């Protein structure tokens, strides 16, 4: 884990208070609150059904929370209530300032168009209208995520799982977002590919000064990427703190169980 950039003078990027997501009578997550600073990576860990994805969906404005507030600092420095913004501005944020990396790359990619078009789509969505420049950026980003440049005109459906996931990351980062949401970014990949992807994400996050919220059930991923951890169970945050602190000295019985259930090879 890299050192947490502690910038006292900078206000938080995201402030979440009392966030509750409900599906009718069922609760997705309850009363979640935290702050995220620029350049910080927050890991959310917990078992399946613990409310990780519900929380992520609410944070990325995909579903409207039943209660609580999310404030996000816009590029002009003002703190805006996410659900007080108009839908137009919210969708604009999602396309430019934010990135969402899905667990299944097929949810985040357009499989029927080439890799270049996948990377270029966000640029075109924010008004790029010069083919040569769009293609230049696409090539540049394919290089950054270690995809051969001569694959630019191939469809992602012909890519391996790891390549698809890297392409998805490139597609999200091309507009220089400030905040990236990742839902199990290494899910479904074999360990060696996972390791390379983690290296890549760690490098990109450090180089670009991104803030990221990473949902994972894999504590190794959390240990490698996250500065801070939140442990969730049954829709509630049971423990939070610095990653090393939470993983090396777990306080809550559930966290202790989680940490002790890692296979030691």
């Amino acid at each position, binding site marked *: 884990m890299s050192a947490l950039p502690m910038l006292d003078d900078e206000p938080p990027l995201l402030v979440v208070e009392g966030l509750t997501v409900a599906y009718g009578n069922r609760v997705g997550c309850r009363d979640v609150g935290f702050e995220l600073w620029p350049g910080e990576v927050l890991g959310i860990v917990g078992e399946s059904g613990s409310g990780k994805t519900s929380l992520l969906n609410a944070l990325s404005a995909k579903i409207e929370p039943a209660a609580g507030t999310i404030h996000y600092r816009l590029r002009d420095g003002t703190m805006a209530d996410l659900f007080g913004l108009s*839908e*137009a501005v919210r*969708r604009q944020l999602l396309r430019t300032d934010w990135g969402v990396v899905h667990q299944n790359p097929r949810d985040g990619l*357009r499989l029927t*168009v*080439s890799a*270049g*078009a996948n990377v*270029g*789509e966000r640029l*075109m*969505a*924010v*008004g790029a*209208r*010069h*083919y*040569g420049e*769009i*293609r230049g950026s696409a090539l540049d980003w394919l290089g950054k995520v270690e995809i051969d440049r001569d694959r*630019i*005109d191939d469809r992602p459906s012909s890519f391996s799982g790891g390549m698809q996931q890297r392409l998805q990351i490139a597609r999200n980062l091309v507009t220089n977002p400030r905040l990236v949401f990742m839902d199990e970014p290494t899910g479904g990949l074999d360990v060696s590919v996972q390791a390379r992807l983690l290296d890549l994400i760690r490098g990109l996050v450090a180089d670009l000064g991104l803030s990221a919220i990473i949902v994972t059930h894999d504590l190794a991923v959390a240990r490698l990427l996250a500065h801070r951890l939140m442990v969730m169970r049954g829709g509630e945050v049971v423990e939070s703190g610095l990653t090393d602190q939470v993983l090396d000295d777990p306080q809550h019985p559930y966290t202790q169980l989680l940490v002790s259930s890692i296979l030691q090879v």
Partner: protein
Amino acid sequence: MTQTLAGYNFAYLDEQTKRMIRRAILKAVAIPGYQVPFGSREMPLPYGWGTGGIQVTASIIGRADVLKVIDQGADDTTNAISIRRFFAKTAGVATTEHTADATIIQTRHRVPETPLRAGQIMVYQVPIPEPLRWLEPRETETRTMHALTEYGAMHVRFYEDIAHYGRIATTYDYPVIVNDRYLMRPSPIPKFDNPKLDMSPALQLFGAGREKRIYAVPPFTKVKSLDFQDHPFAIESWDEACHLCGSTTSFLDEVLTDDQGGRMFVCSDTDYCRTRTS
């Protein structure tokens, strides 16, 4: 042709339906390029043959109107003749093949070569009105995209064309932006005809019967074809002139003349070609 079919209302549709369609048309004219939903009726021809166009024509046609119907540029194909006879029988209106004489021109796939004039109405038959449909199957989502002018992803298609073919390979139904606001499908006309839509003195109405949508381009409205800065919009061109009339500026069809590889290029607009040769 003044004898109309007994038992039918003027121009086939009942007055209440016509009023409903006219309201949709008025709204469409007020918001250029916006797709207005309307209660499309069953018509005595199959979907895909112009049920949308025929309903628009039926609700705007008056006894003094002169109707021209073209299908792929020709006045004498089955579809064009049938629709012309339909209105001759149900409305008793005069029909013509001459673009200049017509007040209403219902069309499938072409805009006449003869420049349109103020007072004329073009009625386009539209199979699929939604330009965003190929990238977004949900109607709720495409409507939101229209509302928020989220049209960037449309260029993904052109990007793909250039990446694979070196140029924009979309040749018909080429998407346009109307009045700097709404993205619109101009119906399956060749992109050759797109510039004719821009600042046209004629009123242009688009009817999609199966999809139940009407949209419009009012006279003298800006219609811009999408493109890239380094790959600007361009229309088709031919190395040959029309075999019959010698035109080098009209849209040409390639016609096979025998089974020995013989072929010739002729104007797709039969009326235009005939006017030039006579």
